[in-house]
């Protein structure tokens, strides 16, 4: 299918992931006219030089990428200071290299680590750090930087908001958090030499390399000299990544420029990254005024505006995001949700296809299970019937549970966490479907994220019925399935499921067999209906036509978008994105 772009060049549009009817808005413009990507082996400066020579990219002085992030949550920049309050919506994690990174096919590639291996029992993992990497203060990057970083992260002084991530995986992590042992006793240490980093785990952890996507170290010297906030001030900023902090005016702007000391394998193609700190409600206006180059998760109204015009419709992309699943959950420990029949009735009362067609559009695809298409161990086809839309079955199950035609069923409040306009619309549609099929009244109540999470994770939970999302942290089924382990996010508890997930997570044999074990665990989850799986989000993005490069070519599944985790050293994107002709002067 061909599509005319703004410059009237023929641009090939393909997207195998979606039905033809939506192709017009889900295009994947391949920069076919550029013809420079045969040299995929070239990276960084060499590629940039070649691009310039061929006239495809703008002169280096104008390689300025401008993004937007929420001024309220840009509190720090480094991951090990806060996972949730850094400019992660735009560009972060550029000041050092993680041990591993992902390409757009979600393949795990070496980054700061050249290679890794494990002991036979899967409990000890050794990463060989690439020699020659350097911090901008002149110090070499060594295993000690990771050791110092992890020790800081587990300390009470850090009170890091992401400690749960390594809980249950790294040896002595929980004990050190509780202060029972010193931070130097956690399972992260320097190996035989300065460039060997050793991780010890509580149980066999074949997923550890994938998990260590989140391993961008702080500078041990910077931490010692200036404390953890050294990267919030250009005067004390230290980087071993391709960029370094040049400016940070809170509530206004963050600017990263090239780090001349960078010695890694992924020099970025753009010279400067500017992050406009603003209110998320303004992203679309900034995008329309060409003041930013990229945004995601637009409101339905903004999407409709973009779809209306053929030129702007070509800027709409639909990716996989973090493979999120949106779901209705129940507090299964209390009436009426403790009755499986009630939960099953709800699961059969949701017409996902209607939702997809009438509301979601490019924002999502129907979900019948937890793991999204494209995510390892996904089994949509195998599990589809368990929660399939079947209004008659739904009604009879509800009658069997003692609520014929919804009689006597208490009116429900369905709680939403700081909902986006789309989530609100979806929730209203879900309530209407439940009312129509089961004759149960639902009131939709939105709550701010802080109050919501406190109520949800309280023991016992204070939310009886809710609608929310979860997306992966790393590309392994355990990242998603562990949400449902006992004592976690929800009140549902199934010891068989716990055993199955942990057995799969720790399985050291054939990876294909390990995937099958996860599929069995997921079946238990879907059959026990602690949640009704509604849709898998397919993140809508707006990308200006002048953002060019390999990043926008379709992945192995035919999906073209800026892939998770976007512009960060955890991804190959910085080496694949440049500013082409047509960009405004910056």
């Amino acid at each position, binding site marked *: 299918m061909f599509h005319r772009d703004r410059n009237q060049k023929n641009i090939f549009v393909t997207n195998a992931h979606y039905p033809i009817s939506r192709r017009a808005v889900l295009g994947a413009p391949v920069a076919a006219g550029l013809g420079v990507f045969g040299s995929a082996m070239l990276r960084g400066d060499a590629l940039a030089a070649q691009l310039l020579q061929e006239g495809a990219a703008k002169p280096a002085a104008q390689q300025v990428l401008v993004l937007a992030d929420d001024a309220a949550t840009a*509190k720090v920049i480094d991951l090990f200071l806060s996972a949730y309050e850094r400019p992660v919506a735009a560009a972060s994690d550029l000041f050092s290299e993680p041990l591993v990174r992902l390409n757009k096919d979600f393949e795990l590639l070496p980054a700061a680590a050249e290679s890794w291996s494990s002991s036979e029992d899967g409990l000890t993992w050794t990463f060989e750090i690439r020699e020659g990497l350097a911090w901008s203060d002149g110090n070499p990057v060594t295993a000690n930087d990771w050791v110092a970083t992890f020790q800081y992260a587990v300390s009470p*002084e850090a009170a890091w*908001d992401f400690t749960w991530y390594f809980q249950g995986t790294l040896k002595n992590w929980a004990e050190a958090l509780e202060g029972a042992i010193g931070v130097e006793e956690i399972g992260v240490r320097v190996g035989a030499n300065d460039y060997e980093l050793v991780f010890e785990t509580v149980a066999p952890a074949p997923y550890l390399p994938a998990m260590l996507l989140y391993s961008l170290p702080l500078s041990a010297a910077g931490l010692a000299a200036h404390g953890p906030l050294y990267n919030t001030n250009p005067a004390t900023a230290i980087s071993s990544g391709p960029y370094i902090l040049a400016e940070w005016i809170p509530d206004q702007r963050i600017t990263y420029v090239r780090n001349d000391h960078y010695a890694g394998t992924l020099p970025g193609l753009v010279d400067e990254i500017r992050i406009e700190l603003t209110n998320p409600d303004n992203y679309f206006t900034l995008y329309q*005024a060409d003041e930013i180059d990229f945004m995601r998760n637009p409101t339905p109204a903004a999407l409709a505006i973009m779809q209306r015009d053929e030129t702007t419709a070509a800027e709409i992309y639909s990716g996989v995001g973090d493979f999120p699943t949106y779901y209705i959950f129940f507090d299964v420990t209390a009436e009426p949700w403790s009755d499986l029949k009630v939960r099953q009735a709800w699961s059969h009362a949701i017409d996902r296809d209607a939702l997809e067609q009438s509301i979601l559009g490019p924002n999502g695809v129907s979900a019948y299970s937890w793991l999204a298409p494209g995510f390892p161990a996904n089994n949509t086809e195998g599990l589809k019937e368990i929660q399939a839309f079947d209004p008659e079955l739904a009604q009879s199950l509800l009658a069997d549970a003692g609520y014929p035609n919804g009689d006597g069923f208490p009116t429900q409040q369905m709680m939403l966490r700081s909902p986006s306009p789309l989530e609100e619309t979806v929730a209203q549609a879900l309530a209407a479907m439940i009312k129509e099929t089961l004759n149960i009244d639902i009131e939709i109540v939105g709550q701010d994220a802080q*109050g*919501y999470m406190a109520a949800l994770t309280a023991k016992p939970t204070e939310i009886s019925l809710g609608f929310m999302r979860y997306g992966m942290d790393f590309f392994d089924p355990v990242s998603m399935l562990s949400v449902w382990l006992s004592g976690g996010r929800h009140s549902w508890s199934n010891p068989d499921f716990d055993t199955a997930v942990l057995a799969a997570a720790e399985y050291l044999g054939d990876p294909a067999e390990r995937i099958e074990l996860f599929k069995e665990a997921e079946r238990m989850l879907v059959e026990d209906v602690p949640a009704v799986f509604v849709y898998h989000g397919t993140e809508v993005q707006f990308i200006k036509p002048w953002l060019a490069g390999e990043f926008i070519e379709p992945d192995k599944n035919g999906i073209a978008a800026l892939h998770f985790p976007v512009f960060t050293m955890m991804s190959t994107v910085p080496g694949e994105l440049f500013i082409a002709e047509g960009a405004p002067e910056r």
Partner: protein
Amino acid sequence: MGRYILGRLLSLIFVLFAVSLIAFLLMHAVPGGPFDIGERRLPEATRQAQLAKYGLDKPIYEQYVRYMWHAIQGDFGVPFQRPTETVTGLIASRWPVTIAIGIPTILIAYIGGTVLGTIAATRQNSWIDYLVTTLGTLGLTVPSWVVGTWLVLILSVRWDLLPTGGWGSWKHYIMPVIAYSLAPMALVARYTRLTLIETMRSDYVRTARAKGLGERRIMLGHIFRNAAIPWVTVLLPEIPNILTGSIFIEAIFNIPGLGSYFVTSTISRDYPMILALTLLIATLWGVTYLITDILYTVLDPRVRLVGGRAG
């Protein structure tokens, strides 16, 4: 007069203590804490470490006493939202931005509104009166964020004349000041018109006219002076509102001012900021009412602030 002002300032201190106590108790009563973020339940040890890091693990009365003790010495703590700044530093850097938008807003709103209201009052039931009244109603009923959004859509997105928002050059003032000043200008215009018309119909104006005084003298010496009293009562207290900014204006035009913090501090349960901002507002209101009361004595010789009889 001096004693009166001193007494009022002393009573303001007690008011501030009361306000701080109420705000402190209320904000701790709201469910959720500053660290209930993220996707999963934090390990209990981390929750405790976070509470300890900001002194929230102490009994609530101890937290309050500790906070006030430091506050008296000028230390309002570190805002949870901005660990790299202090509360006083943050207010010192953001408030001037809000004031920089607020002062032209006040000038335009009050001068423009007074002129329009006076014209409308002196030409009652003329086309200009109807125009001012209609615009006044519009200005009061169309919210500033609607005006702001339209300004951005037309002047920035459509015509590309001004940046959509931000801060740094004179261009960044134009749209926020227009959007922000319309509602107070409408209020001032309507109120000026109303009080002037009421005063013009009063007996003493009729008497002055009967004595044969010139219209100009009647207007300046009798009407304006008398109309100023209700005008000051109603309109002066609007000023602290404008000077502390508007979340809508600052959010739409991406202005790094203080206004947004009144909302974000509550949402993120930023206790030190909530308290500091509450005290700031309370002080501004206290001082504004004091100034209003003093102005009464200037405007109306019958009003005495302490002792004595009016007369």
